[in-house]
């Protein structure tokens, strides 16, 4: 069974928000849209976004890490938001595991958002239906798009390729390999929701320096170590003839 998902690499995410606005841009005009904004040019502007980048500080100075953390619907394998929906508007597609909302069925009761521990769903305050990341399902199978563009738009826009898209049930997929190789993990595993999206941790590279590295026969200083030879015109014992 296919389970499409994103694998987000915190080791390369610089927190640029490209995924945030490219998502908004595609989806507000796409099948999942519109995505409304309130107070767009006034105090406390706010709006619907399917994806946001948050920032955290880990540790204390000087050992501080700044972690940028993109968060969208995790398309759980056991999504708690789906069974609670009274209308069936919230559903998980058997064919690819994407969790979606059928806007025509949604009554806007917000119960699914209560049931999501990750805060991945947002009500559209004008259309009054629940909205969330669709993994750009309206791109994935669109034969009118070039094949390499049949991906979530956040994946295409991400400048640090920190978003890997693929079938995590296919061990040969890039996403599965990334999870395996780099220690991919799930968010809040304690709730057993089995999020399909995974995150890759920070990985630190160090350079090992050995004492011997600093003592080498080819040290260029050795080429300079003899002072300049005295000029041959200077008087020396060679000029003495009394031997």
């Amino acid at each position, binding site marked *: 069974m296919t389970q499409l998902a994103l694998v987000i690499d915190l080791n390369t995410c610089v927190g640029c928000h490209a995924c945030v606005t490219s998502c908004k841009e595609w989806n507000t005009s796409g099948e999942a849209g519109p995505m409304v904004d309130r107070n767009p040019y006034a105090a406390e*502007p706010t709006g619907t976004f399917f994806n946001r980048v948050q920032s*955290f500080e880990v540790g204390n100075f000087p050992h501080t890490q700044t972690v940028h953390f993109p968060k969208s619907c995790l398309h759980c394998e056991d999504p708690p938001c789906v*069974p609670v929906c*009274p209308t069936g508007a919230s559903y998980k597609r058997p064919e690819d595991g994407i969790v979606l909302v059928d806007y025509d069925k949604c*009554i806007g009761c917000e119960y699914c958002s209560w049931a999501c*521990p*990750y805060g991945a769903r947002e009500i559209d305050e004008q259309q009054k239906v629940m909205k969330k990341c669709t993994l750009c399902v309206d791109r994935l199978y669109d034969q009118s798009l070039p094949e390499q563009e049949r991906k979530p738009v956040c994946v295409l826009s991400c400048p640090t390729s920190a978003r890997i898209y693929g079938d995590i049930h296919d061990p040969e997929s890039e996403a599965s390999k990334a999870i395996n190789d780099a220690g991919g993990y799930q968010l*809040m595993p304690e709730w057993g929701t089995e999020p399909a999206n995974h995150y890759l941790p920070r990985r630190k590279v160090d350079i090992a320096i050995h004492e011997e590295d600093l003592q080498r026969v080819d040290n260029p200083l050795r080429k300079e170590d003899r002072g300049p030879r005295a000029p041959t015109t200077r008087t020396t014992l060679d000029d003495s003839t009394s031997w």
Partner: protein
Amino acid sequence: MKPALSVILLTTLIGAGQGLFLAYYSAEWFVMLSILARAQTDYSGFAAGLSFLLLAAGLLASFFHLGHPERAWRAAAMWRSSWLSREVITLPLTMLLMLGYALLKLGSYDPLVFVLGESIPIAASTLVGFCAVLALCALYVCTAMIYACLKFLRQWHSPLTVLNFILMGGASGFTLATALSAYTRDGRFAYFVGMAIFLTLAALISRFASLLRNRKLRSPSSLQSAIGVHHPTIRQLAQGAMGGSFNTRAFIHGYGASVVRLARRSFLLLAFIAPVALLQAGSETSAFLCVSAFVLQYLGLLVERWYFFIEAEHPQNIYYQMIS
């Protein structure tokens, strides 16, 4: 969680309505079993009507919670998995049965169906009422389970949530019945007041137990598990939106600890202690005290439901602590 007024109204109104029906219907059985004396005037039809109205008011309130109330009918679809869907089915069913019961009681046609044992005549209304009781019990469970089934809302995810809900609904229903009885002097005061005090005290114990339980609860979720970074010191700096979001508006109540403490003390006083005192002091002749007991208890339960939301820590709030 941020309290949702329409949901608070729904749960308190229908809880009381169900309790009220239970009070009068159970009284009817006690009469049939000759434990209680037959009343001069039987107000059980009227009480059932009132129960129906309370449930209807609750239902009406719930519509304000919906983005698309015109599609509410769709909510019956997922009864196999969704407690909300089950509530959506049981609530109108209960109302229908209550209405049927009330009409049979108030109307002139209430045929005898059979005689139970040798001396207990079972009228159509009694049968319908019995079904209504089954339905309302199911409704109690469904409504409570809407909250109790959300496993990561740990404060809610407990049998106590269901017990509290039944006991508080029952208590407020019996208190209302007591007030009604005191007002109508229909001779059932003693039964109702006794039950009301008993249920209120039981609800107090049960609610207090959940307060104690919740006080000790530690969420297994933390910033560490939320972002998957295992370091003792993590602090959010930005949540990606400075003007707020659905996540901050719907889940973060923003009330200070003193308000929360005041609310807790208020509902313990209003919903439990004050009604018991008033009911104790009240008698069949002091309708005012009994009506006051109900009004205070209902207000207290509104606060209690409000507190119920405030008390629930939604794990999503971990992601929405700071802007910059």
